[in-house]
């Protein structure tokens, strides 16, 4: 595959939509072409992530190792899909083993080339992060949907005995700035930018057991936990599994604001909880802007999505190991 062919192919990949021809040719130069045979393993779960791949043709299978010396297929990837970005984004290990289920042609991005794209001092980096957020939100939805299928049954509303409706959110004043400045999520913001971010939304406090958001409904806000904890759960009939715990510095409710789809989880406070509430308007402003605050905000979202993708595999492994 020549550089021109690679650039032409990249133009068809949704992840790279909107980049001009010169940019795509430059990207194509940074990529390495690799062919793999059927059954070949690209990497194993737990391997240090050094690259991601764009599938040109062929199919890949992603499997999760679970206790009992078993491996369970979690997803598949075909032409135009990107695989392996999670470990590149957080510097960690690959979350799943990836294997070719038929001969495949791939374009390989090295860690440094990928990071260089994300840190370019121009608007293309913002656009790439937004596309990445959209891609990761979709992947998280797929993982949660698969987990839901493992649980069986239909999506059901949160049990009203254990959750109270949204109206219990009471307005609250802002938290102590000394505390906020020590939260890792805000470390990259200078005091002025931090003030700008924190005044973009409002604060609300709610008691334990409050249902803030229900799976299948439209989220009206992105919530950032300042104090306390919120359980993100899937409820199927009388079965309920926690897929994440949004403690201090963790966000929830934003997936639907990114991709305009219903919430993939139900969110119920486990502790009394202080939330920063960014309604759709302020969220879209922060998401679409291209300044220091927006850069940090996009990074916070990406970190949260990557963390959620990893954490969602834990209850998944627990359920799979018990069936």
């Amino acid at each position, binding site marked *: 595959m020549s550089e021109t062919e690679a650039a032409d192919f990249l133009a068809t990949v949704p992840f790279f939509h909107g980049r001009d021809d010169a940019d795509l040719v430059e990207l194509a130069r940074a990529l390495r072409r690799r062919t793999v045979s059927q059954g070949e393993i690209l990497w194993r*779960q*737990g391997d240090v992530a050094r690259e991601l791949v764009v599938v040109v043709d062929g199919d890949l299978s992603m499997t999760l*190792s*679970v*206790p*009992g*010396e*078993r491996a369970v297929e979690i997803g598949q990837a075909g032409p135009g899909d990107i695989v392996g970005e999670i470990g590149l984004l957080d510097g960690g290990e690959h979350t799943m083993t990836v294997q070719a289920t038929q001969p495949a042609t791939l374009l390989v991005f090295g860690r440094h080339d990928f990071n260089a794209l994300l840190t370019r001092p121009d608007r293309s980096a913002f656009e790439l992060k937004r596309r990445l957020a959209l891609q990761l939100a979709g992947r998280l939805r797929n993982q949660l949907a698969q987990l839901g299928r493992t649980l069986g049954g239909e999506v059901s509303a949160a049990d009203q005995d254990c959750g109270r409706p949204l109206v219990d959110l009471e307005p609250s004043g802002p938290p*102590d700035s*000394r*505390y906020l400045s*020590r*939260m*890792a999520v805000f470390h990259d913001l200078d005091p002025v930018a931090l003030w700008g971010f924190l005044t973009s939304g409002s604060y609300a406090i709610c008691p334990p057991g409050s249902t803030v958001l229900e799976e299948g409904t439209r989220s009206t806000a992105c919530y950032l*936990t300042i*104090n*306390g*904890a919120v359980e993100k759960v899937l409820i199927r009939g009388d079965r309920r599994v*926690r897929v994440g*715990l949004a*403690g*201090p*510095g963790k966000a929830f409710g934003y997936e639907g604001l990114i991709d305009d789809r219903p919430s993939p989880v139900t969110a119920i406070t*486990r*502790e*009394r*909880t202080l939330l920063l509430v960014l309604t759709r308007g302020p969220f879209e402003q922060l998401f679409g802007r291209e300044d220091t605050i927006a850069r940090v905000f996009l990074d916070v979202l990406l970190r949260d999505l990557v963390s959620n993708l990893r954490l969602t595999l*834990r*209850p998944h*492994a*627990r359920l799979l*190991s018990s069936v």
Partner: protein
Amino acid sequence: MCRVLAYLGEPLPVRNLLFDPDNGLVAQSYSPQMMNTFLNLGGFGMQAWDPSSLRPDDPFTYRTTTLPSFDRNLRFLSAKVAPTCLVAHVRGVTYTEEAVVADTNLHPFRFPGARLVLAHNGHLRQFTRMRYSLVGHVRPELAERIEGTTDSEWIYALILSQLDDPYGLPETRELAEATAASLRILRQVRAAHGIDTSSPVNLCLSTGRSLVATRFSFDYGWYPPDDEFLETDLPFVSLWYALGGEYAERDGRWQMTAADVPRSVIIASEPLTRDHSSWLEVPEYSMLTAEFGSRGLEFETRDLDV
């Protein structure tokens, strides 16, 4: 902030848990993979039950305030002792003059004559304010036995006090109920003193025949702004388990082997290997119980709402 380890299952050399895996408990004292801004250099302790030993109901006890990584006696002994049950702990203390590194503060705690041992990963914030309000909930003869300065030893005395016979062999169910009851008492006493800040209470309890463990925190996510533990405590204190046939090395990798009916379980603050694929995370706010039943090891996880 301390690391705990508990094991119940087939006889297993202690070194397979402490030294051999690439993230064994001893490695977690100087190079923890989780909560790695805080080292666990305040001492080591273990209680290990070996059915083939003299007086098998009495656990083998080893405690030292020296660093376990340089403890050659521990290394030699751990190659020789193969218990069916073990609770071990490496202690993390603050790097301040208030910290007391002493034999009396080493986990697992076990009062003379008691069958129960306890190790704790966590801390009760503002414990000094509430400590003496616990006296009314602890049997006087047990309160007299508290020697150290830790909140953990008080939790131990509190749980023992909820048992029908503190020196008897409680059934797993009674031990689990006593643990939950003790957490409820702690919550009440905290409320009475207006203490409402994050206080993790990951416990491992054992009688040598069963295990009870908690992954729990009071008021998780609330901290005094100037708290020295704040950054360390922002994530929920971790706890993991591996369940299966036996813990063994295969192809150079330590893992729990598959089994239709589980025969062994390891519960630990973090997986004993850097590869987590044979480990499962204990859900937050949970209690685990494990005991030998008629059909092998009976293991249960339940939500802990106290």
